């Protein structure tokens, strides 16, 4: 958790991934960034061939360098994402055979390898763009951008409350774990451990329900009637227009590369 000296002045709110967001991407209007990243992600997800996603990975790396997130952090996050992707490489290259001639068996499947490769490229292309562009904004600004873009208010509210109370839940979880440790709980592979963990999860669940009721009551006491107010307003600068134009130009170019009827496809 973040620590601040007790009576210190107000520090800046932190960005999505707690990195100092100092690069030029941090100063862009989050609304533009959300729209560009969304369009780009849809394009990447739809691409049938590996070429455009590969270009997307290169572009993503360039964006990451441009937004100056720091290579160490980028590497850490990339590894986390790719640990999920690794499972695809574990399962996709193999095919089950069932039949009279072939018999029951597992054989190597080159199509599966191609598919795993394609998914890896797409996932990383999207991930790099999200981290480079959205990751350089304060999470609060992202929420506000979503609200200003007229996403359903309930969805945005859910997102905000989720993020706010995730921290409270995490602290509650840590306190419970500490309380268990203080009474010499040593996890092992036995029924006592499973039972204790089940209790821990159960208590967290019940507490979160009770907490949500109290939060709602507190909101009612302050006159809540379903409106979530926006206090921050963004200022659209010429740089944001330039960014959006460049972003959409790149997206259209990538789309042409894929679907423009060129010989490399």
């Amino acid at each position, binding site marked *: *958790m*973040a620590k*601040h000296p*007790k009576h210190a*002045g*107000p*520090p*800046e*709110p*932190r960005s999505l991934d707690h990195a100092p967001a100092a690069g030029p991407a941090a100063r862009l209007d989050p609304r533009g960034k959300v729209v560009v990243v969304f369009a780009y992600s849809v394009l990447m997800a739809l691409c049938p061939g590996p070429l455009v996603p590969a270009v997307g990975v290169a572009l993503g790396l360039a964006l990451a360098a441009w937004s100056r997130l720091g290579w160490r952090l980028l590497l850490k996050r990339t590894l986390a994402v790719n640990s999920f992707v690794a499972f695809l490489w574990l399962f996709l290259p193999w095919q089950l055979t069932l039949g009279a001639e072939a018999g029951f068996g597992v054989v190597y499947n080159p199509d599966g390898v191609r598919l795993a490769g394609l998914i890896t490229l797409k996932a990383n292309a999207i991930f790099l763009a999200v981290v480079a562009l959205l990751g350089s904004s304060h*999470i*609060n600004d992202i*929420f506000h951008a979503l609200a200003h873009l007229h996403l359903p208010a309930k969805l945005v509210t859910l997102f*905000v*409350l989720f*993020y*706010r*109370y995730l*921290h*409270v839940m995490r602290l509650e979880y840590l306190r419970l774990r500490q309380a268990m440790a203080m009474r010499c709980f040593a996890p092992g592979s036995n029924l006592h451990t499973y039972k204790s963990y089940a209790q821990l999860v159960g208590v967290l669940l019940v507490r979160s329900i009770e*907490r949500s009721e*109290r*939060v709602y*009551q*507190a*909101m*009612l*006491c*302050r*006159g*809540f*009637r379903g*409106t979530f*107010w926006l*206090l*921050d307003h963004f200022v659209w600068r010429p740089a944001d227009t330039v960014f959006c134009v460049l972003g959409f130009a790149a997206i259209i170019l990538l789309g042409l590369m894929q679907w423009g009827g060129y010989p490399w496809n």
Partner: protein
Amino acid sequence: MELIRLEGVSYAYPGRPGVLKELDFTLSEGQRLGIVGPNGAGKSTLFQLCMGLIKPQAGTVRGLGQPCSSEKDFRPLRQKVGYLFQDPDDQLFCLTVAEDVAFGPLNLGKGRHQALHLVSSTLKSLGLEGYERRVTYQLSGGEKRLISLAAVLAMQPTAVLLDEPSTGLDAERAQAMERALVDSELSWAMVSHDRDLLERTCHKVLSLQDGRLRA
């Protein structure tokens, strides 16, 4: 003017013996009441009944002189009377301090500029200048408590229900809060285990025992 009146109110949590038994309670403008009582005596329950957050099984709740039963009946009362919850994490649900403190005023129909002005003046009155852009979940326990009080006071209520307001505050902050309250025009009912605090700040101290209030 009478703000809240409970008449013959009884309340029991499901499957447990009653906490409040035919209790009478009145909070009028200009009154500063302290409430003491053992753990589990129903002090927080009393406040929740006053604000219409839970419904009594017997008896009536009157807010601003009107009988209140539905959610809508309680709305005018909640504009006049603020409620400081025991756990500030329940109260601070926005991500930044400014948004949280502005939430109440905006609900009351204040404009953005007026709300922001109220935010800074309220924070200043509690010695919290410059906290506007702070992120709520990164605040210390004491800071959270003061900010949640600011969130209640920013609605410019006539009276406040304070549930253990000084818990978790260091001596300096507790003093700042006490001063801000005493110097204000506010009426209140304050629950605390700190008898000295109640003697210093309240006109009258009631004790909640066996489901009833006694002087």
